[in-house]
């Protein structure tokens, strides 16, 4: 089967599975799962979008952004404003049916992503021209400024919060965005574009020496990451039908950051797992609400001591099992001849390499 036909088949199958799940499991009328569990699963879906998109810039490109919630807020508020003012009109214009609302939501999502991308561009261009940690400082500031703005813009409810947003609690929609995010980030980091991003993370100067226009690539990665964060914001805005600037404060950016650090910077599977863990954990710890932050901190400390690269950092479970067989046949290549006088060190490095591959080290999207 030609490649595009296969991809099309997979895409259709995926849509069918998502739709079937939505219809059979998440339809409130069927009472398959409690609304509470459904809510947690959907929130996890939104968090997956946020974590995977942040991983593109932090994990793969190596540029530290700590204002992801700011871009999320931009996407959330701009789409909410759109939906409140034009959503009903668009839906009614198309017969007020499910289709009309789907179109309205699609437009809102695209708009939210686009506005967030524009914000990402404005923040990214000046700060990514420089090498070093400027992005962290600027994104931190951006996150704060957005919250201050939103607290003072009357037309979106200012500090009272923005209510009356059309509610779309759709498993299908949320996970469609999440899957699209995962697939697009995965394909990106496997492509030549992604290899350029990873080379920037590894050694920016050397990447430049290869002919990579590092500034342009960093900005591109940042803009894409911001757009996806904006899409995540759109989902959140329409999830409860209510937005409050408080939900986008620094702590939210930090939460997403913990997700990808927990899962492992530069691992997509890790980001997904991190997002799920940090969505479910607070619910599981509801009885110890006061100690939640303490438990988080202890968890992170233990993680940093035992696995500083994160749960899945340096691993890619889907690629490793394929590489392993190849690795076995190469054992002979590891023998170190006397040519290198620093024998001891070389042997250590070589066995390290061997071991690393035996624990299924991936190739592209890992960092050790």
């Amino acid at each position: 089967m030609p490649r595009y036909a296969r991809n099309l088949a997979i895409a259709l199958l995926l849509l069918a599975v998502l739709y079937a799940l939505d219809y059979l499991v998440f339809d409130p009328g069927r009472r398959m799962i409690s609304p509470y569990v459904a809510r947690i699963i959907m929130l996890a879906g939104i968090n997956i979008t946020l974590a995977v998109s942040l991983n593109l810039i932090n994990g793969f490109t190596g540029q530290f952004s700590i204002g992801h919630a700011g871009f999320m807020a931009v996407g959330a508020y701009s789409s909410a404003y759109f939906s409140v003012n034009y959503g009903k009109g668009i839906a009614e214009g198309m017969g007020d049916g499910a289709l009309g609302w789907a179109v309205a939501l699609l437009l809102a999502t695209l708009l939210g992503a686009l506005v967030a991308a524009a914000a990402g561009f404005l923040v990214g261009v000046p700060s990514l021209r420089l090498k070093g940690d400027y992005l962290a400082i600027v994104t931190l500031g951006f996150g704060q400024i957005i919250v201050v703005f939103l607290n003072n813009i009357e037309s979106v409810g200012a500090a009272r919060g923005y209510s009356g947003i059309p509610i779309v609690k759709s498993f299908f929609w949320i996970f469609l965005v999440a899957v699209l995010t995962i697939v697009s980030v995965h394909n990106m980091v496997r492509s030549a574009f992604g290899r350029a991003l990873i080379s920037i993370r590894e050694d920016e100067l050397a990447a430049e020496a290869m002919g990579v226009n590092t500034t342009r690539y960093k900005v591109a990665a940042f803009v894409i990451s911001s757009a996806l964060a904006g899409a995540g914001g759109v989902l959140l805005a329409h999830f409860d039908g209510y937005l409050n600037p408080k939900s986008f404060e620094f702590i939210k950016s930090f939460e997403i950051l913990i997700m990808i650090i927990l899962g492992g910077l530069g691992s997509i599977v890790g980001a997904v797992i991190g997002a799920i863990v940090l969505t479910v954990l607070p619910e599981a710890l509801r009885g110890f609400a006061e100690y939640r932050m303490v438990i988080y901190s202890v968890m992170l400390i233990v993680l940093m001591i035992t696995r500083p690269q994160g749960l899945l950092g340096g691993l890619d479970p889907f690629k490793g099992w394929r590489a392993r067989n190849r690795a076995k046949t190469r054992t002979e290549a590891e023998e170190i001849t006397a040519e290198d006088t620093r024998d001891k060190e070389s042997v250590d490095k070589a066995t390290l390499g061997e071991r690393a591959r035996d624990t299924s080290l991936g190739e592209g999207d890992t960092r050790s």
Partner: protein
Amino acid sequence: MLSLENISVSYGAINALKGVSMRVEQGEVVTLIGANGAGKTTTLRTITGLLSPSEGRILFEGQEISGRPTHQLVARGISMSPEGRGVFANLTVRENLLMGAYLKKNKAEINEDLERGFRMFPRLKERETQKAGTLSGGEQQMLAMARALMSRPRLLLLDEPSLGLAPLVVHTIFEAIDEIRGEGTTILLVEQNAHAALGHSDRAYVLETGRIVMEGPSKELAADPRIKEAYLGE
């Protein structure tokens, strides 16, 4: 091919280069030697556009390239193997080499160049799918050089290729330099190891505290008593 005309570079109040002029002709291996802090790396960084000269200009094939961003030079035919090697530790050897061909589109040429790199350094072939970070220092240097050649440069800049390597590995590296030159690539070699550099180059410049203090055919410089005393330890 490459000429520096009266280049001065300063870091704030400190003048790192004071009117450096040098040239590299087509097909030559030219070496720039000097002690730590003499300005060797500054010279190279200026050529590759990481630093802008406060005075003077740099011409490559007749066109001024002073202050051009580094990534544009690759397209013009200049390639650099950076100091400290700068291999991409978490990419495999093969992926590192492919990064070197980043601006190349022709798959057949890329494969040809990969094979050439592996022929030049069979060690890299053995470690093709291994992460570059797990290689020994010498292997990383080989990788950095092979990677720099992937863009088929007309001028290859090598920054301290022998730095921190064992003598036998240094020997391998310099043999490779001879081989690259044999294929017609022009090389500017910046080295602290004056002995090896003079033995494998046509002409040499000696840099001291930001000035060129001597220049000439490498053989003559190697025989010069001042060079012998200061750089060759004889």
